[in-house]
């Protein structure tokens, strides 16, 4: 009994010496913004979660960079950031990487980036029985890699992308000169859609870029007759 009590006393002693409550506050600042097309002044059209990432890194030489994913509409938001100075950069998207921004984050801080996308796609949609006809042009304001592929996709929610679709029409463009592609108005007909259902359609186009990313047209909502 005596032995036990001595040990218990020792134990209590050690515990009290060790216990220090972590009373630092959690991350309470946020960073948000948009990645904006320099010609249209609208956020870029992309996909989520693989459209682009935001790299955020504390503004000192010994920091570990962390990435978070941007949204399909070209915006991004991270609501769990400690207040402080950061280097911020959108990366791995279908656009020329812009310059790093140094941002003082406190409260909710907004930072926008203006970028030049590899390609722009403007599309219009006309429904037909059991399908949809997409007419579109591919353009660009600065040349990067060869234009490799165009792809019209349809899906039953607005998550539609190059990998998420119910039906698609893909055309390999690798053998066609870029000048000809940029001069052409393309027409693709997506078939096999269910009548009476709502679909979201868009067109993707891809250059030969090291991250294999697509540029997109805006999403068009249709109801198939």
């Amino acid at each position, binding site marked *: 009994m005596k*032995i036990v009590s*001595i*040990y218990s006393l*020792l134990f209590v002693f050690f515990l009290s010496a060790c216990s220090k409550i972590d009373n630092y506050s959690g991350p309470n600042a946020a960073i948000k913004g948009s990645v904006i097309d320099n010609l249209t002044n609208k956020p870029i059209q992309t996909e989520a979660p*693989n459209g682009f*990432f935001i790299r955020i890194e504390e503004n000192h030489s*010994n*920091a*570990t*960079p962390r*990435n978070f994913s941007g949204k399909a509409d070209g915006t991004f938001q991270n609501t769990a950031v400690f207040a402080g100075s950061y280097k911020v950069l959108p990366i*791995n998207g279908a656009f020329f990487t812009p310059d790093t921004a140094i941002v003082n984050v406190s409260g909710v801080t907004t930072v926008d980036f203006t970028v030049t996308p590899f390609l722009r796609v403007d599309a219009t949609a006309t429904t037909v029985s059991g399908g949809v006809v997409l007419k579109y042009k591919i353009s660009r304001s600065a040349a990067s890699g060869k234009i490799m592929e165009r792809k019209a996709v349809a899906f039953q929610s607005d998550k539609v992308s*190059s*990998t*998420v*679709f119910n039906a*698609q029409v893909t055309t390999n463009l690798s053998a066609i000169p870029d000048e000809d592609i940029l001069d052409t108005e393309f027409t693709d007909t997506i078939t096999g859609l269910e009548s009476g259902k709502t679909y979201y359609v868009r067109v993707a186009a891809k250059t*030969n*870029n*090291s*991250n*294999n*990313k697509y540029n997109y047209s805006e999403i068009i909502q249709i109801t198939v007759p």
Partner: protein
Amino acid sequence: MPVLVLTLALPLSFTSCKKVLDVQPENILQDETVFSDESAVNIYLATLYYDLPIEDFTYIVQNGFDKSGTCFLEQLDGEAILNIADDKNSIGDGTWVSWWNYTVVRNVNHFMDQIEKSSFSEQQKNEWMGEAKYIRAHYYFGMVKRYGGIPIVKEVQNYTGDNLEELQIPRNTEKEVYDFIASDLDEAISLLPETSIKEKVNKYTAYALKSRAMLFAGSIARYGNVNLNGVVGIPAADADHYFQLSYDAAKAIIDSHKYSLYNKEADKELNFTNLFLDPDNPELIFVKSYHFPEKGHSWDYRNLPFGQRSPEGSGGRINPTLELVETYDYKDGSQGKLKLTDGSGNPIKYANPLDLFRDKDPRLGASIIVPFADWRGTAVDVRAGIIDGANTVTSGSFDDEYKGMKVIGSSGIGGSNEVSQTGFYVRKYMNPSYDPATIDTWTSSTQYIEFRLGEILLNYAEAAFELGENPDAAWALNQLRSRAGVASLSDGDITAGKVRNERTVEMAFERQHYWDIRRWRIADGLMNNTQFTALMPYYDMQANAYIFKIAKVGYARTFLPQLYYERIDPAEIAKDSKLIQNPNY
């Protein structure tokens, strides 16, 4: 009170401990003891061999090496899907095949260091050093094919308390890592003996790994993109250089005439089946042996056809896809599409269902159990249902009967939880001499072949094709095709597609295809919201014959482009801030 005294004594004893801790523990062998005794060195070496990243029967996706489980590499690359409702809804997020292992690199570096210092004969030291160089190259190849460029560590690192900075090494470029592998293998080639037992490496094993690794480097240079300043990707201008290294290494093995293709049986299908089961086999260059009960594996337990599975359960886990089955040509060399319908689109009625596969490449029957093929003397009855006039009868249970006939057979499509998804089962490496009643996890002793002459010929053919030497490519492919019993190709037939198809069918389920579609950079096109296909055999009662339908099964797979490189575990980056993450993670 004695306790209290002891407690007080403890802090005192800490201060005087220093000398005590310098005493060597008596239950752990010290380096001086190990590296002065030949048998102890061989035991150390055995551990280095054991840690080779060989993706054999016990390599399980998401679990790693030497594990039990049901998700195999074939289920990620379109060769097959998992049978249990194909319950994975993804083919990975960049962590499923990860293997970042600097522990084993340290072990082999330490081995080299100690052998160098030891007092064994020069000849003995050279042989061990050759094995160690091979092993280190194999470790690095296991990592570079996953992550791209990784830090090259050639020496044992020691932490002295204040040198953390110098131990943190940035990633080398992918090209530098492949060059390092080539140079280690060149040294291994000059040091290793001409022959060895199959479980140990010799000169030609080093050539074999070199031909495989350099083929990877060449393809990545030709088909990949350079990113992160070369940390991933290899400049396109270097493609020919690496293909030439691969070609030369394969040629050294072929010209040595030390190995020959397995050709013991007149029956081509039996011959190709036994190639993987017969340990007395002149084609084998390097194998991983198993011996139950000391060390077995579970290939048979996992993959027996349902009707003949072990009383312990499981079975039929890997279901080959119709896409893979149709990759096998016909014997006359014509394209391998199965003849399911006649000219006007009506299903062809087969009185003998095996006639659907008549005249296919004999490697099909040797690698895959097709519906109604033989397993241990019994036809594997795979039905999707029975057609009785206007009625089509299907069932969710292997036990249901219709007019005296089992609706889906004992191994068919649609039964219970454990369904056959595609109608096909694996035959390669399955050992028919095992009585199913004795099969359980870890009971199989079949050897796993890491290198065989067949792969060397395929490496040679692919490197030759990439270098524009089509006659050499045709020669090598025809060695394999004539052994298999398929019509030869002429020089003019050689295309990337032919070379790759031959590799796919010859080496199905040999754990290369997954890496092949990665290095060819075709995986994202192959699996873009893609479902694979099942063959559905129905018995037509009136016609007393079988018809075959097809159906899309399993989840739709998408291979995202970032999966060409694995994600580096953020915990590793936290330890070494000089590491940079791969793109898109």
